[in-house]
């Protein structure tokens, strides 16, 4: 109790400091017609709400935490931790510019991605339209509150993320470099805002408002994949110590990178002995560009930006664009596919509802789609795990080995990601229909669901992988692929049987997993892993694999029949 109290206190005080800081500008703002009291209130409430809102950046980690409720202080801590890891790059001081350039590249990319993924919901808060607009608040106050809100958010992020590096720079370049670095962080922050603004503007110009939110969520998915990939792969692919000795300025394109301009300031002021005219020019560019950029954003981009945002927020904006479901050829194809795969009406209903909700539910896509990218990343991570060889050596070794079967077995990761999320939804209450309708055999809905998952997600994914594998490893891989696919299906049914005890999208999103379930899931995983390794050792006998397909197919068929017979007793009902 005391612990959480302290955390809250710390956060509150942090916001208070920012509000106090902003309040220095109040007299000036008041002269331009802003209502200071209202402004202060709006900012205070918006900051409180930010603290209570879960962040997308840690969405992947959210499942691990018990309730999905993240403490804001924990997020601050993670931000500082990430800042510390990026800060380590600064120790690459073999050549001028190098360390700081890398640091600011990562800093800016991370900043821009966080801004896009976490702040979009704040920018497009449609509730403002109904809560703020009917109150006697003038437009200027709302506009200024929005700008200040974004600035506070961004500066807080920048300071937390940059804090460790400020200290590190003090150790490397002496105490004088610290204030210089502070200015450099501000430069990087402003440039990131400029980048984000341009991205938003391009998106808003080119896509319809509804699509905009979807695209943002793809950004978020891309972001988590990127973080994952850099974490696992970068150290395998690049020898970090080599990076430190690259002379950046011998490459002409280096002059085009904004992080180089930012790093130039440190070169000019701290290492003036080794800097020349070019460095001073770059440093000046680094100082003027953010200011010019901010002016450009405020004068040229922002007005249209706000107008477009308000159009998006009001119903008028949505009126013109139809939300009618497209009847494109692709959908007809899947409809035919669903009739083919699930001819029974109840099963067909299960198939179609799974397919349609999965394709249209943003939260589901956010949780499951990254898994599609994780599989190849994991595979490369394990495959490239060798020491003292060049990458081409390792790749060659990879091609001569039979490890490709593991690519398919690893794909079961997708299967479990889908299955773990398929029964959960924020709108789980709509699932009352299952309970209200006279469904005698709910197993049919489940089997429809399973068929939909396999035909629409797992099979296409495995097909793509298989084509790639056959190209790299040759057609003798086909029998292995078929067997691995069938074994994966067995894994899927086992998971579905023991782990997923709910109808599609029918349970609230709480990751409340009992210890027993964890053990079951580990047992299933160990079982399939055992079969996978067995398969790997039997691979030299091609015929054996072909024969193995027959029992695998038969087991699948039997288990699926059993799965289809699930009754209401086997299904966990949730309060609707």
């Amino acid at each position, binding site marked *: 109790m005391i612990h959480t109290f302290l955390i809250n206190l710390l956060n509150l005080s942090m916001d208070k400091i920012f509000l106090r800081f902003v309040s220095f500008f109040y007299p000036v703002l008041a002269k331009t017609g802003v209502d200071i*009291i*209202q402004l202060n*209130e*709006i900012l205070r*409430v918006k900051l*409180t*709400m930010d603290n*209570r*809102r879960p962040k997308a950046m840690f969405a992947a980690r959210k499942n691990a935490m018990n309730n999905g409720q993240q403490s804001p202080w924990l997020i601050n801590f993670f931000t500082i931790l990430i800042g510390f890891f990026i800060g380590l790059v600064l120790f690459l001081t073999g050549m001028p510019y190098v360390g700081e350039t890398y640091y600011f590249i990562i800093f800016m990319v991370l900043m821009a991605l966080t801004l896009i993924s976490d702040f979009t919901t704040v920018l497009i808060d*449609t*509730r403002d*339209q*109904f*809560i*703020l*607009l*009917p*109150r*006697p*608040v*003038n437009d200027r106050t709302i506009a200024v509150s929005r700008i200040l809100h974004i600035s506070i958010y961004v500066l807080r992020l920048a300071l937390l993320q940059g804090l460790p590096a400020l200290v590190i720079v003090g150790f490397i370049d002496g105490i004088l470099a610290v204030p210089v670095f502070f200015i450099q962080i501000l430069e990087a922050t402003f440039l990131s805002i400029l980048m984000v603004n341009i991205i938003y503007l391009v998106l808003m110009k080119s896509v319809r408002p509804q699509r905009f939110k979807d695209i943002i969520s793809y950004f978020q998915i891309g972001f988590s994949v990127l973080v994952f990939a850099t974490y696992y792969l970068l150290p395998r692919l690049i020898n970090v110590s080599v990076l430190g000795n690259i002379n950046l300025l011998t490459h002409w394109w280096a002059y085009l990178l904004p992080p180089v301009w930012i790093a130039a300031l440190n070169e000019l002021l701290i290492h003036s002995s080794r800097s020349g005219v070019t460095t001073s020019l770059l440093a000046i560019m680094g100082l003027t560009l953010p200011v010019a950029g901010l002016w450009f954003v405020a004068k040229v981009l922002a007005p249209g930006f706000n107008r477009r945002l308000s159009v998006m927020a*009001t119903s*008028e904006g949505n*009126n*013109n664009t139809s939300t009618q479901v497209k009847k494109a050829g692709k959908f007809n194809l899947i409809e035919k596919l669903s009739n083919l795969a699930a001819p029974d009406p109840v099963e067909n209903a299960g198939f179609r509802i799974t397919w349609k909700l999965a394709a249209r539910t943003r939260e589901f896509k956010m949780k499951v789609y990254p898994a599609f990218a994780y599989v190849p990343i994991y595979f490369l991570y394990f495959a490239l795990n060798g020491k003292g060889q060049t990458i081409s050596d390792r790749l060659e070794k990879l091609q001569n080995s039979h490890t490709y079967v593991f690519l398919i077995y690893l794909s079961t990761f997708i299967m479990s990601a889908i299955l773990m999320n398929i029964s959960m939804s924020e709108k789980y209450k709509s699932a009352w229909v299952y309970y209200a309708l006279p469904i005698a055999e709910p197993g049919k809905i489940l089997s429809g669901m399973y068929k939909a998952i396999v035909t629409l997600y797992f099979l296409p994914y495995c097909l793509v992988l298989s084509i790639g594998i056959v190209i790299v490893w040759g057609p003798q891989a086909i029998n292995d692929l078929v067997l691995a696919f069938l074994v994966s299906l067995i894994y899927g049914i086992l998971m579905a049987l023991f782990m997923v005890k709910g109808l599609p999208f029918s349970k609230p999103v709480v990751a409340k997993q009992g210890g027993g379930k964890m053990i079951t899931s580990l047992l299933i995983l160990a079982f399939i892993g055992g079969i996978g390794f067995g398969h790997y050792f039997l691979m030299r006998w091609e015929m054996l694999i072909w024969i193995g397909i027959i029992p695998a197919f038969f087991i699948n068929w039997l288990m699926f029949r059993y799965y289809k017979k699930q009754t209401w007793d086997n299904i966990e009902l949730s309060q609707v």
Partner: protein
Amino acid sequence: MAEAPLIQIRNLSKSYGSKLVLKNLSLDIFPGQVIGYIGPNGAGKSTTVKILTGLIPDFEGDVIVDGISMATGALEIKKLIGYVPENAEIYDVLSPMEYLDFIGKLYGMEEDTLRDRTKKLLMAFGLAANADDRMDTFSKGMKQKVLLISGIIHNPKIIILDEPLSGLDANAVIMIKELIMRLSNEGKTIFYCSHMMDVVEKVSDRILLINKGEIIADGTFQSLKQDHSDTLERIFSKLTGRQDQANGADAVINAFD
């Protein structure tokens, strides 16, 4: 009524693209009146309300509230109006106390009065025990009560209620109906939009029926009854051109054949 009208609407038109939603609407509303504003879906009801509350700033015609023109003094007008929107938008990560504190301060209320009044109102609506709970756990009815409070917290002259009874239980409905009468006796002007004809019939002393962007009936329930039919429901269906309701039901039954 000798008094000057509190709300004057003159030749109000509004179109979305090529679609004309309001066609030359003219209307006078006097202080203390409870207006029941009814009409079929898409008739222009919520557009009127949104213009009156300043949510839609661009329109043709004049809207004058308490002598102030909407075109020039929207801010002053907003101070006079309390609005309870239909779609229940609320910052639900806040608690009722926090939310109402926020709203009250936007109206420029003093902290002490505001806190005192918020507590009393939450108590009156039976939410005292939940005053400091986050609203994301609230039921629809509880959120609706908070919205209602946020619409009257600054003691406005005009109260605009858009489907205010949704999600409320029978006791709360009785209380709101009573409240509307009492507020009207206090001299408040109430603009009540709803699809629930029986409630409108009971609470309003003047009923406005809008259809396809035009007001097609205006009067007390008594006068409408004399001219048209005996219940508001029937009057509604007769005037909005759906006299073939029986045919509609026939068509439904026939669909099974």
